[in-house]
């Protein structure tokens, strides 16, 4: 008998028992759905983190307060080795680094939490005193206006650039932390999904009456009035988003606030080749200004290495969940098929009496399990893909990423499960003696 005929019999067998098939298939559908979604989450998180870290650029070096301890093999342990000490980095350190050979730029970050006021709205935000290089180094694009200049830095000009969330909140378009008596420490709240979907459906009509922009307007921070000269484009990323920041010249920040110590500095080497040399020179330049080593100089590859550890843990966890899900669904399918073989004992006896060979019976039941797994797997993958699409079009915190290799791997895996767990029921069916099977009640 041709393989195609056995396959056809298997299809027919499945169709004839479609209710049982559906219940058996649910295990594979749910298992594959979970695997696809978890894979997309793991890869999405990894990609987002890598993109953020990688966006600094290979030629960039991070100067952090505190000391990153070395591991036994002399590498910096960023995951557990960063000591928690108050910052002693100053703007003078940044100026000292500017004199180091092969340093292209130094971008200091002087950060504090503050309340911005406009009209009658009070919005909690992160005030960042920095240099004119900030938007370039942070890859923060402007949606309107401009960034402050070197000259404005020198003049201690009272100008600010708003992060997108802060801009929207001050305009009253978005809920963000507000300063009032009832809830001074409210967490950041973005628009709920249903509201975003509604906004999309309604288009511009929903915000037609809202004020367009704050560029050119005055915003009050710490009782001082600042002119808004630009607004950053949305930059919804994990950890280092600029959306809730207000940027101003570092000289202005030092003059108008109590802030003295830098949160961090981003040093740009002139070329990738000179990174190692600059790394050491920056360290020495700061060391000469400090009585002890209470700072760390970290290169991009060290940051990515630390991130690699986190994502490796994620991948191991994902692998564990995947194997468990597949074993559970595979065992479920096998049990259902074994029950099916038992229930169809008489049918097997009839088929054998009519001339079906052992291999034909085996082939029929094997293909039934295989088809069941493959169809269930395909449905699970499809549902997972649909979930990812819905997530990506409605949730902005990070994008779920489903690479083609993951889809192929999932399909091969379902094929593998079907093959592996289909053998036992098929053998059980094939080994039946026709004379006994015909008498089965």
């Amino acid at each position, binding site marked *: *008998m041709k393989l195609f*005929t056995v396959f056809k*019999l298997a299809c027919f067998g499945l169709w*004839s*028992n479609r209710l049982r098939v559906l219940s058996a298939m649910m295990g594979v559908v749910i298992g594959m759905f979970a695997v696809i979604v978890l894979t997309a989450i793991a890869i999405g998180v990894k990609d987002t983190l890598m993109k953020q870290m990688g966006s600094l650029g290979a030629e960039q070096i991070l100067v952090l307060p505190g000391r990153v301890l070395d591991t036994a093999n002399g590498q910096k342990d960023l995951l557990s080795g960063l000591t928690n000490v108050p910052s002693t980095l100053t703007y003078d350190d940044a100026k000292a680094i500017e004199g180091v050979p092969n340093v292209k730029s130094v971008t200091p970050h002087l950060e504090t939490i503050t309340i911005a006021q406009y009209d009658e709205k009070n919005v909690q935000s992160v005030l960042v005193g920095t240099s004119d290089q900030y938007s370039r180094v942070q890859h923060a694009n402007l949606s309107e206006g401009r960034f402050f200049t070197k000259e404005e830095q020198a003049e201690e000009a009272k100008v600010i650039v708003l992060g997108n969330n802060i801009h929207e909140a001050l305009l009253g378009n978005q809920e963000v932390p507000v300063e009032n008596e009832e809830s001074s420490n409210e967490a950041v709240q973005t628009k709920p999904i249903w509201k975003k979907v509604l906004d999309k459906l309604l288009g511009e009509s929903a915000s037609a009456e809202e004020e367009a922009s704050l560029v050119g307007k005055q915003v009050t921070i710490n009782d001082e009035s600042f002119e808004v000269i630009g607004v950053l484009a949305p930059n919804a990323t994990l950890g280092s988003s600029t959306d809730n920041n207000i940027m101003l010249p570092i000289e202005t920040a030092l003059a108008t606030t109590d802030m003295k110590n830098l949160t961090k500095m981003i040093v740009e080497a002139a070329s990738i080749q000179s990174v190692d040399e600059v790394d050491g020179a920056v360290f020495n330049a700061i060391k000469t200004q400090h009585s002890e080593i209470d700072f760390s100089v970290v290169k991009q590859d060290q940051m990515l290495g630390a991130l690699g550890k986190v994502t490796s843990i994620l991948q191991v966890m994902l692998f564990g969940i995947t194997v468990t899900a597949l074993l559970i669904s595979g065992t479920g399918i096998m049990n259902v098929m074994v029950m099916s073989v038992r229930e169809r004992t*008489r*049918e097997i*006896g*009839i*088929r*054998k*009496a*009519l*001339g*079906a*060979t*052992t*291999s*034909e019976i085996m082939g029929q039941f094997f293909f039934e399990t295989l088809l069941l797994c493959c169809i269930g797997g395909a449905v699970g993958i499809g549902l997972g893909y649909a979930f990812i699409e819905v997530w990506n079009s409605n949730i902005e915190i990070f994008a779920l990423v489903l690479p083609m290799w993951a889809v192929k791997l999932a399909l091969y895996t379902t094929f593998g499960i079907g093959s592996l767990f289909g053998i036992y029921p098929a053998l059980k069916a094939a080994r039946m*003696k*026709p*004379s006994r099977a*015909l*008498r089965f009640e």
Partner: protein
Amino acid sequence: MIELRDVRKYYRSGNRKAEILRGVNLQVEPGEYVAIMGKSGSGKSTMLNLLGALDNLDSGTYELAGKSVHRMSRGRRAKLRNEEIGFVFQHFQLIPNLSVYQNVLLPLTYGRKRLRRKKSRVLALLDEMGISNKKNQKPDRLSGGEKQRVAIARALVNEPSLILADEPTGSLDEETTESILNLFDRVHKNGATIVVITHDIEVAERAERILHLQNGVLV
């Protein structure tokens, strides 16, 4: 056509070994209509299983249409069942999920005949059995007589040299029994070799020869 020589069959139950057939000898000529009678537990079913190549002999020889069944592998016995033997069982043994047409087609599915011939053969047989109007129905929608007609059509579809019937009218009323036995007569007249295993004398009397199975031996 059929030649059994000194056939023995045992069944083991724990440490006990029961001899069901104790040296059975049987010769059936082509085109012959034979009935094997016996009381319950006399070994009729065992006899049917051996004649139908559904079970192995423990000793002796079995020749069917010139082929040594006792020496055959499982695969060759399956082929022999498909090509040379047509079964009619007491409880019809139709597959409930398949339609009448699909049940009759089943032996051809496991055979090597071309599709066009298969379809025309099945339709002709359904017509001959008077059930062509039921071809798309499932067995549970049929009466006992109709079910047995489907079973007979299925037994004949591959043009086997031997029809083996196990209590073919055991589940039928008198009127239907008569029509089914008439159908057997017609099949026999067309040249088929028929072996009917029964405990019903009226069924056995339609055969040309009646044999009795007593204490595991044919007399």
